[in-house]
């Protein structure tokens, strides 16, 4: 059976499960049945996708279904790029299904989740499989709508209706941009097959427009600043395993769309395009993580951190474009591999962290970090897995997040070879932005972990928390293990990604399997190399050595006592450092500029016994200065147009007549 047929059978299976779920969703066993079925189907699809990535067939055959446009049919195909993204989608899908078996039991309204979950998975698979513009857009809309239904699963909770509304508006807007982009690509001839689009020549004018439209269309789904506003509303609103899919996987499907169109279909890039992508990526990374730093809702913090990672990936893609435009194949492959590696890594640790947030939500009912704390004592296993995720997402060795960021910085260091001055200056500046984002990410996850899991419990819910079920735990631990594995054995991952760069860029990084000791060497050993395995081994050895020596020669005495705190014991857990206080230094350094942040202290006069109050004022400038004016303009014009609703039949008829005459006049003058 060909690879694409296998994938399509899995997709059909998922759609079948969706239909089945509508019928059985009120049964008690429905949760296990549905998630069990999606787990099995995703696992099969994952194995199939891995096979086509690691052992690519000589010619990727396509599958034509007699649906869609009548003269075209619906084309589906699995090439190296699609295979990689299918791995990401189905790995995330399998993990979310496994997690869902346990987590879904706490779902108050399973009939709102169960049918849409398999449909959402099927939609994401189909987008990656599609090989013509029409099916692509159709599947894209299907994916958007399925995820929208999942966002609206708990539609009565405060804020969720707004989240769903903003998501729907932004998704339609994005699809509109994609529609126009594909229209331009297909040209007046209107051949919507990807093969024909790839073969056609595109004028620079069309290429520029397509780039802008793709940045809007795919960028809004991925969460590029300033099109990100829906993401921190919608992702946390869904049930946690769906949040994990939306953040960890659906944003990657958007990135797949961007890569497919800009790198594959559009032909050779121009260097000016890369400057735009680079700068957008850098700004998105820093803005995303600054937003996350200010957040006190755990799931929204994770959603904002997704925006940061999307920025990192787009910056890598921008670098790849810059090198590709100048014919520096090796450096382009390095940047492109860094982007793909980060796609994979982010899908691991972001899913893991959302699962962790879901575990916290199940056992405490809280998402507000400032009402949590001390969970490491009551949820030891979950908190260990989340710790791994936090270290990995903070780009710290020896975990996987570091490897992709390291590759990215190696690509940044290749920029002196670029001939254009604009790029020479932009790339180091963006590199500094990315370093800032990486450091802020570490700060942000110290805050997220420290406030949620460490310290003393700030509420009774946190005090009475308990460990979650086996399924949830095993999903988290599998992802944590993958984070470590990809971090200490990056060489095989890079080698597995090389067929994609060969297909897309026509060059790839050196084969890493030939390097001694499983090191990774992007260009040459004298330039730079990194060996995650040895770093891990060294740390383990030296730590165990230290432990052995200390326990052999030093005092073993240990006494528990009240915290020292310099002799100032804190009376209540509420006096601990909260998320807002932890973020205060960074708010003060960056927030005054980015958020117009102000701290207002209301101090009662001497003798007054009322407590002093601190109020923090933060402004989301993107929302207030971009979206609110648009929203109010739309509202205003809708109000004005509302008058047209109450006309008499005579006036309606004259309106129709006037429109007709105007159109005819326009036509007459035009031609």
């Amino acid at each position, binding site marked *: 059976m060909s690879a694409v047929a296998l994938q399509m059978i899995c997709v059909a299976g998922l759609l079948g499960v969706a239909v089945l779920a509508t019928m059985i969703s009120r049964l008690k066993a429905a949760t296990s049945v549905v998630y069990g079925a999606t787990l099995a189907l995703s696992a099969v699809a994952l194995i199939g996708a891995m096979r086509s990535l690691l052992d690519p067939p000589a010619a990727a055959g396509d599958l034509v279904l007699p649906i869609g446009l009548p003269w075209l049919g619906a084309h589906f195909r699995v090439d190296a790029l699609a295979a990689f993204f299918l791995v990401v989608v189905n790995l995330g899908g399998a993990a979310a299904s496994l997690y869902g078996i346990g987590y879904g039991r706490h779902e108050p309204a399973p009939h709102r989740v169960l049918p849409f979950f398999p449909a959402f998975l099927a939609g994401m698979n189909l987008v990656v499989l599609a090989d013509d513009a029409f099916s692509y857009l159709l599947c894209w809309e299907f994916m958007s709508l399925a995820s929208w239904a999942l966002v609206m699963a708990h539609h009565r909770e405060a804020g969720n209706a707004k989240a769903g509304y903003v998501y729907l508006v932004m998704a339609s807007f994005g699809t509109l941009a994609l529609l126009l982009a594909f229209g331009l690509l297909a040209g007046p001839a209107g051949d919507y097959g990807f093969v024909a689009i790839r073969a056609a020549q595109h004028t620079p004018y069309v290429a520029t427009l397509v780039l802008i439209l793709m940045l809007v269309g795919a960028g809004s789904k991925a969460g590029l600043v300033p099109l990100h506003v829906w993401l921190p509303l919608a992702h946390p609103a869904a049930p946690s395993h769906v949040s994990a899919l939306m953040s960890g996987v659906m944003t990657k499907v958007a990135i797949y769309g961007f890569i497919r169109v800009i790198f594959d279909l559009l032909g050779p890039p121009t260097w000016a395009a890369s400057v735009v992508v680079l700068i957008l990526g850098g700004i998105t990374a820093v803005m995303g993580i600054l937003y996350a730093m200010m957040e006190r809702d755990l799931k929204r913090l994770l959603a904002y951190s997704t925006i940061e990672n999307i920025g990192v990936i787009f910056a890598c893609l921008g670098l790849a474009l810059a090198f590709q435009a100048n014919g520096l194949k090796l450096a382009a492959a390095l940047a492109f591999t860094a982007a793909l590696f980060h796609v994979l890594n982010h899908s691991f640790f972001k899913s893991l962290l959302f699962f962790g947030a879901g575990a916290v939500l199940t056992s405490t009912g809280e998402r507000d970090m400032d009402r949590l704390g001390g969970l490491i004592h009551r949820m030891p296993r979950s908190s260990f897995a989340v710790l791994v995720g936090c270290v990995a997402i903070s780009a710290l060795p020896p975990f996987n997040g570091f490897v992709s960021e390291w590759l990215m910085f190696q690509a940044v260091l290749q920029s002196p070879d670029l001939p254009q001055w604009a790029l020479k200056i932009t790339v180091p500046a963006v590199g500094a932005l990315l370093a800032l984002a990486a450091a*802020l990410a570490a700060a942000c996850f110290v805050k997220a972990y420290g406030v949620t899991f460490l*310290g003393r419990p700030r509420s009774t819910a946190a005090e009475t928390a308990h460990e979650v079920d086996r399924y949830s735990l095993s999903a988290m631990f599998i992802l944590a293990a993958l984070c470590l594995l990809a971090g200490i054995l990056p060489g095989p991952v890079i080698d597995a990604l090389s067929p994609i760069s060969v297909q897309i860029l026509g060059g790839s990084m050196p084969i890493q399997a030939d390097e001694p000791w499983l090191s990774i060497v992007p260009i040459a050993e004298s330039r*730079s190399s990194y*060996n995650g395995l040895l770093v891990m081994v060294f740390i383990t050895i030296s730590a165990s050595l230290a432990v052995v020596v200390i326990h052999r020669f030093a*005092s073993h005495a240990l006494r528990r006592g009240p915290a020292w705190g310099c002799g100032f014991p804190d009376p209540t857990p509420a006096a601990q450092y909260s998320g807002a206080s932890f973020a205060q230094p960074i708010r003060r*350094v960056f927030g005054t500029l980015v958020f117009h942040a102000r701290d207002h202290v209301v101090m009662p006069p001497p003798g007054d016994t009322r407590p002093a109050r601190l109020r923090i004022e933060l402004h989301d400038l993107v929302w207030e200065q971009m979206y609110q004016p648009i929203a109010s303009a739309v509202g205003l014009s809708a109000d004005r147009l509302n008058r047209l609703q109450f006309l008499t039949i005579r006036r309606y008829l004259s309106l129709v007549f006037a429109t007709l005459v105007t159109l005819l006049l326009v036509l007459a003058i035009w031609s």
Partner: protein
Amino acid sequence: MVVISDILVQGVQMLLVLLLAPLLTGFVRKIKARLVLRQGASVFQPYRDLLRLLRKEVVLAENASWLFRVTPYVTFSAIWVAAALVPTFATGLLFNWTADLIAIVALLGSARFFLALAGMDVGTSFGGIGSSREVMIAALAEPAMLLIFFCMALVAGSTQLSTVANFMASSYVGLRVSLGMALIALIMVALAENARIPVDNPATHLELTMVHEAMVLEYSGRHLAMIELGAFLKLLLYVSLIACVFLPWKIAVFGAGPLAYAVGAASYVVKLAIAGFLLALFETATAKMRVFRIPQFLGAALMLGLLGTLLLFVSRSF
């Protein structure tokens, strides 16, 4: 046989940094004391302090978790591994290629991450204030650091420290304005990263502007000893880093034989002494700055790095 001797040399390097680190701190303290006309403790006092801490019992806060107890070992070993990967007396040791400059700095980042978490673990305000300020300083230092590395990599064509050191020791380099800027910027970042004056005061934890010492306030006994030793090692690491990149004289090339190693080691100790003396002199002559002046301090380092990079581009294009 060759492999065994290679591993031996690498082991000597690991032991050397471990043994020299407290001495460097003791030396700096002694010089500082002498500069303000105090007698000062012996240069070996840090060793005695460590031994005393090791003999004492650990007083652990009631709600401290396993993370709090594991962190001293994790941070110590991460810093030790990082310090062992920086060339000290010889370049090109067996495992030097395990991690380049960026990875070494990231290893220090791992150590800091766990230390900041441990500061949050007990749930006292001191730990929180220390952690939150520590991560702020790191967030400011890291972009500056990247631009400094960028500047260095532009000159030497590598981020591999051995290659950089060999290149800098060769006669191709000469005096460059960019490298001077990178040096100044790196020193500024190193001061911030090591919690030295003017960014933080290593001698106290009883003022509200403290950072590092507040974060580790709850530690005692053997745990504190590990953390202190880690801090000593970190100082040594940065001094070695600056020495091997900017003052690589007499550094031995790998496989040069015991005599060259001995010369390299002797010159390394001399470099450490000079750096320690300059550090003490600087700290005595400067006042600590307010916490929210640090962004300007590190922003200046960032700008120096950027300027150095741009100057290199300009000088290359002519």
